[in-house]
């Protein structure tokens, strides 16, 4: 654009300043985890590794982390299977109510989390008569994770078209052979991106989880939230928060390892 040099410099300065503001709180979390003081007073006076030791021994945090990982893994797996099947069905076959289905899949993520949360809570308890527990968390998470897989797979299928599969069928391969040897390899990176997003979404989710978790199960976000307002636990929460900030580099790193087109997929869905 024909912007004057001054205007360009202004835009750059604004962008850089915004980025500084975006990253400051995250850095603050990491710095605080080393601070001796239990309050957020700035600047911190003394540093220590003591809280990291305390946190590593914290039973509650470790158990919550384990529950979170399990939930996210199972929910991601379910979402991968169902999301792929839904995308394939919508792409390859034309049937009654096709457009409604694609809207339906997006709905759990378009509505505020609290609505999804109490709707599922109500359904699990009164309609199905289930007790809230591990299973209900997984079902709830899978419900809103499907959309990320669905979006990625559908975008990929639309780009590929059906020619290769038709060729495979013409050459005598059955439906499953075609899927195993042709469709699946073409979808692999889209599935990886969708699965990564689903895992991240499930690992981080708190609102829907609050309404679908039983009293025994605590996922990590719920554990953090429950301990947030306890001054005694503040140092441990600081460390857990710092670990989560540092761990958020991993998915970005994986996304970069994938080809450029799939990292686009990582930005598309919520």
């Amino acid at each position, binding site marked *: 654009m024909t912007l004057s040099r001054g205007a360009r410099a202004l835009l750059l300065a604004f*962008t850089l300043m915004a980025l500084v503001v975006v990253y400051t709180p*995250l850095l603050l979390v990491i710095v605080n985890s080393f601070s001796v003081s239990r309050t957020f007073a700035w600047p911190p006076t003394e540093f220590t590794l003591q809280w990291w030791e305390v946190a590593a021994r914290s039973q509650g945090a470790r158990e919550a982390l384990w529950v979170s990982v399990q939930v996210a893994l199972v929910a991601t797996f379910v979402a991968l299977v169902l999301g792929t099947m839904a995308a394939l069905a919508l792409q390859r076959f034309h049937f009654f109510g096709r457009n409604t289905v694609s809207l339906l899949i997006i709905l759990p993520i378009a509505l505020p989390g609290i609505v999804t949360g109490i709707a*599922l809570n109500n359904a699990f308890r009164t309609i199905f008569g289930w007790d809230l527990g591990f299973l209900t968390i997984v079902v709830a998470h*899978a419900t809103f994770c499907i959309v990320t897989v669905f979006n990625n797979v559908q975008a990929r299928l639309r780009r590929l078209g059906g020619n290769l599969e038709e060729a495979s069928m013409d050459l005598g391969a059955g439906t499953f052979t075609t899927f195993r040897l042709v469709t699946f390899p073409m979808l692999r990176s889209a599935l990886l991106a969708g699965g990564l997003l689903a895992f991240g979404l499930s690992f981080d989710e708190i609102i829907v989880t609050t309404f679908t978790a039983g009293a025994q199960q605590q996922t990590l976000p719920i554990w953090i939230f429950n301990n947030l307002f306890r001054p005694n636990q503040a140092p441990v929460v600081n460390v857990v928060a710092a670990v989560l900030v540092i761990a958020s580099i991993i*998915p970005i790193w994986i996304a970069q390892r994938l080809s450029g087109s799939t990292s686009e997929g990582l930005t598309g869905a919520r």
Partner: protein
Amino acid sequence: MLWLGVAYLGALAALFLTSLWGQNSFTGEIERTWTLDNFRDLFTIEVYRTITWRTLAVAALVTVVDALIAFPIALYMAKVASPRVQRLLVIAVLMPLWASYLVKAYAWRGMLSENGLVSWVAAPFGLDSPGYGLTATIITLAYLWLPYMIIPVYAGLERLPDSLIEASSDLGASAAHTLRRVVLPMAFPAIVAGAIFTFSLSMGDYIAVRIVGGANQMLGNVVYDNVGAANNLPFAAAVATVPVVVMLVFLGAARRTGALENL
């Protein structure tokens, strides 16, 4: 295969049926009698009206703040930066999304606390941290949802052909004029697409307001309290229909601008 979809829609439908049921005030049992009492309470009791308006105002302000911050950044990314810088900036904008929502809200609790970083920075200017309250809630929510605004606007601006901008300046328009008459109208659907996210996410939030909002309540808190402590599911369901209806109206209006293709 569509079991989940059906179950989810069924769950939503059941929720709205519940909102029309009454509750026995003595035993707390849900009575399956049809009544509009829950909605009447929602609209006539002063507290709930205030909370509804407050929630809408907060969501609207968060959206405006995000749009104002996101537009210059997206403009720089899409039209000024070199492809290499562009790629780096996209990563820089996306990375905070992977950091936990809760951790980011918690980080702002630290930022805004008494003697925290914000008051330390503001002190030389004779200012102080806004402390916990509605201002803090708006700052935190705007911070949380900023990437959801930047990315669609960036994508929208990137699709805008350079030739249009060149044509405008060839025809004698100044940069500011081009921005107002060409770039902004073309980017508007993308901004609305971003607003769908920021508005919807802010409206349903009750966690951030608990963490940095002091004693203030939003609609989400009312729902949460009625499901948990008060155990009045019908009323909670009635309250929860408010964001759904607002969102449907919003989506209907957004469709007219062509924003849904920008999602």
